[in-house]
């Protein structure tokens, strides 16, 4: 293996090959035990994305760990930080890059350990495809369900169940079929729209990049073929226009004394010269008279292109505003209800002053309450009656009695937030690119939570009424 070079790498191709290829962002979920690092190493290795010095470093490391040097431990290719090497775990999202002649891939390698759920949420937020990994000997485990639930929560449109270690079950068709069926049933409950299952062995390479002759009963695509085939970005372009304004370009130079353009990335949909747009939250309307880029003017631009738009009227448009179609009724408001994943060790405090970041806008806000909590292991939702008045809570008191309805690190719950000024409130379920928000600590700027506006998986699952709940739920809170 060590003698293989990258001289024939397919990604190299001719100029014509790569010029038209597109980009797929994907995430992996699974634990070290499932062979996730080996699978990613295999994808990199078999697409010839591993270069010789990386490979020889891994060979040295394999030998240093007692390997005989004949087989490379592909998992070591993706082992990043020293703490991870020492502890043998993955502690943070790592990004990997590989490509084929058809497509380039940005892979978010997310840890499967429960205390790092926030990293999986992070990796899944931008992914258009998630690979959920299971060990064929163990089948669908609690953590498999958790990974699938987070994938559904974050609205990842495509899911591949990679049934790994098929070599250890003798490439048994019945084993694969049972696991694939169980997962499909679960995916249906979660509302995952597009799920595929592939039997593979990351260690030996079966059905990862190259088709295996040890699974004659499987005539579906290999993992890489699936990654190459799923449509990219189709949903973003099909949604209505959202163009959050990032920056107002006013050169005030002799060549452009009166130029005023609104710079931003088309988050979804399409903007065209001549379109009537509405500026939110102010509500004023105007017409697009130019779409400018460094390379020349455009008549139209589609998500996710970065452009500069000029309007016919001299409106007061600034960073934080959103340009939307004038004829569409887009919801704005000061009361945000959404599902958050709590990302920090400090627990949520009802009544806390926070900043809400959505699109390019940051506004002051009050975290009024947490009124439901999703247990991703059991897929149960605990729901509480609304609190009428905002109570004053001592933030330094972290005892559970002081904050009975709060979220700890990695907990997922529904929040009600009152905003100091109105913002665009797109439901995440239908507007994945604009329906996300952050809760930020105004004191030190840290990100407290990431949220999704409107109904999510949490609301889809049947709520347990407060009067039916088990009183010792706090024992498991905050996982």
């Amino acid at each position, binding site marked *: 293996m060590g003698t293989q070079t990258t001289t024939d790498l397919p990604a*190299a191709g001719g100029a014509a090959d790569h010029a038209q*290829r597109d980009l797929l962002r994907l995430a992996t979920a699974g634990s070290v035990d499932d062979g996730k690092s080996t699978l990613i190493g295999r994808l990199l290795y078999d697409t010839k994305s591993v270069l010789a010095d990386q490979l020889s470093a891994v060979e040295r490391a394999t030998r240093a760990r007692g390997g005989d040097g004949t087989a490379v431990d592909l998992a070591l290719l993706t082992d990043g*930080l020293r*703490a991870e090497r020492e502890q043998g775990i993955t502690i943070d999202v*790592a990004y990997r890059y590989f490509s084929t002649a058809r497509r380039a891939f940005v892979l978010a390698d997310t840890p499967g350990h429960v205390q790092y759920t926030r990293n999986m949420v992070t990796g899944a937020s931008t992914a258009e495809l998630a690979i959920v990994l299971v060990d064929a000997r163990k089948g669908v485990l609690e953590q498999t369900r958790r990974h699938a639930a987070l994938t559904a929560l974050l609205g990842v449109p495509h899911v591949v169940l990679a049934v790994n270690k098929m070599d250890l079950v003798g490439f048994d068709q019945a084993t694969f079929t049972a696991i694939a069926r169980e997962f499909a049933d679960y995916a249906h409950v979660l509302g995952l729209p597009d799920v595929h299952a592939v039997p593979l062995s990351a260690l030996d390479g079966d059905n990862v990049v190259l088709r295996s002759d040890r699974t004659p009963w499987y005539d579906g695509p290999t993992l890489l073929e699936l990654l190459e085939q799923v449509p990219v970005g189709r949903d973003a372009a099909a949604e209505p226009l959202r163009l959050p304004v990032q920056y107002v370009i006013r050169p005030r130079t002799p060549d452009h004394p009166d130029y005023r353009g609104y710079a931003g990335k088309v988050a979804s949909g399409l903007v065209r010269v001549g379109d009537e747009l509405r500026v939110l939250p102010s509500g004023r309307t105007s017409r697009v008279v130019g779409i400018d880029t460094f390379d020349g003017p455009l008549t139209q631009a589609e998500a996710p292109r970065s452009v500069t738009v000029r309007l016919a009227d001299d409106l007061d448009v600034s960073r934080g505003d959103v340009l939307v179609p004038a004829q569409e009724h887009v919801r704005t408001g000061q009361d945000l209800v959404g599902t958050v994943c709590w990302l920090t060790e400090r627990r949520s405090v009802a009544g806390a002053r926070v900043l809400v970041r959505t699109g390019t806008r940051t506004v002051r806000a009050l975290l009024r309450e947490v009124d439901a909590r999703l247990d991703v292991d059991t897929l149960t939702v605990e729901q509480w009656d609304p609190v009428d008045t905002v109570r004053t809570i001592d933030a330094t008191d972290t005892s559970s009695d002081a904050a009975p309805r709060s979220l700890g690190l990695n907990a997922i719950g529904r929040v009600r937030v009152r905003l100091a000024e109105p913002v665009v409130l797109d439901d995440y379920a239908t507007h994945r690119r604009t329906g996300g928000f*952050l809760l930020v600590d105004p004191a030190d*700027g840290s990100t407290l939570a990431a949220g999704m506006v409107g109904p999510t998986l949490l609301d889809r699952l049947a709520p347990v009424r407060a009067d039916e709940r088990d009183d010792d739920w706090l024992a498991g809170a905050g996982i």
Partner: protein
Amino acid sequence: MTTSTTTLPGAATAAPARLTQLDALESEAIHVMREVAGEFERPVLLFSGGKDSIVMLHLARKAFWPAPVPFPVMHVDTGHNFPEVIAYRDATVAEHGLRLVVASVQDAIDDGRVVETPGGSRNPLQTVPLLDAITQHRFDAVFGGGRRDEEKARAKERMFSLRDEFGQWDPRRQRPELWDLYNGRHKPGEHVRVFPLSNWTELDVWRYIEREGIPLPEIYYAHERDVFARDGMWLTAGDWGGPRPDEVVERRVVRYRTVGDMSCTGAVDSHAATVADVIAEVASSRLTERGATRADDRASEAAMEDRKREGYF
């Protein structure tokens, strides 16, 4: 779309509906740069004259066109420079009307802020003058050309990477980055390193240079040069301290894959004289660019992680 009312010269065209990979990477980088311009008071772009920083500057010009780039560029000058690169830097700054800040390693050595190890590389010495310049100019956002594909520790780097008042990077304190909501809030004295090229690979950078027709310092292309071998690399003779009496100088056709301090940036044997040649060479290369040409990354497997923690780029 026949009634375009654009007032700018040139006929407007419809952008191709589907973004290619390079379009997507370009759009992402421009988005990141505009976020910084919108959120920070005093950004600065690190500009070494290396290809990654040149691509960053090109993206910055695109991001704010027709306005000029709204922030200065900073060169951390080790004093061991390739003259071609300094010439390129100065010409670029003049052509685009940029403000250049130079943070000098030599000054830091002269002031006693850093101590030079005899015969050692000056690359690790860049950290002190870099941090001093950030403090002196009160820069709150610093664009770097780092890419996640370069090195294992960088694979976990954020687009927006928070640094404490000592410029230090703590992997456990990094904020989760979801969607494209980059949180640049920081306390006084802290700053944020921003890496718009995070998701680019070396090949992407070269293909973008080809697509955009971006000129580079000529040392990136094959040329004849007097070099000598040290640590398995071809180094250029210079007043920084090479060659030693036992090292033989010979004339070879080489090019540089990275541009850094002359004492530790090695050339590779190459006949790649054009961008297309370089792309073909990089695509078939058996060594990553850092492995081939950076002595300081070989010190230990965790070398980059250690330098990052201390506030290196």
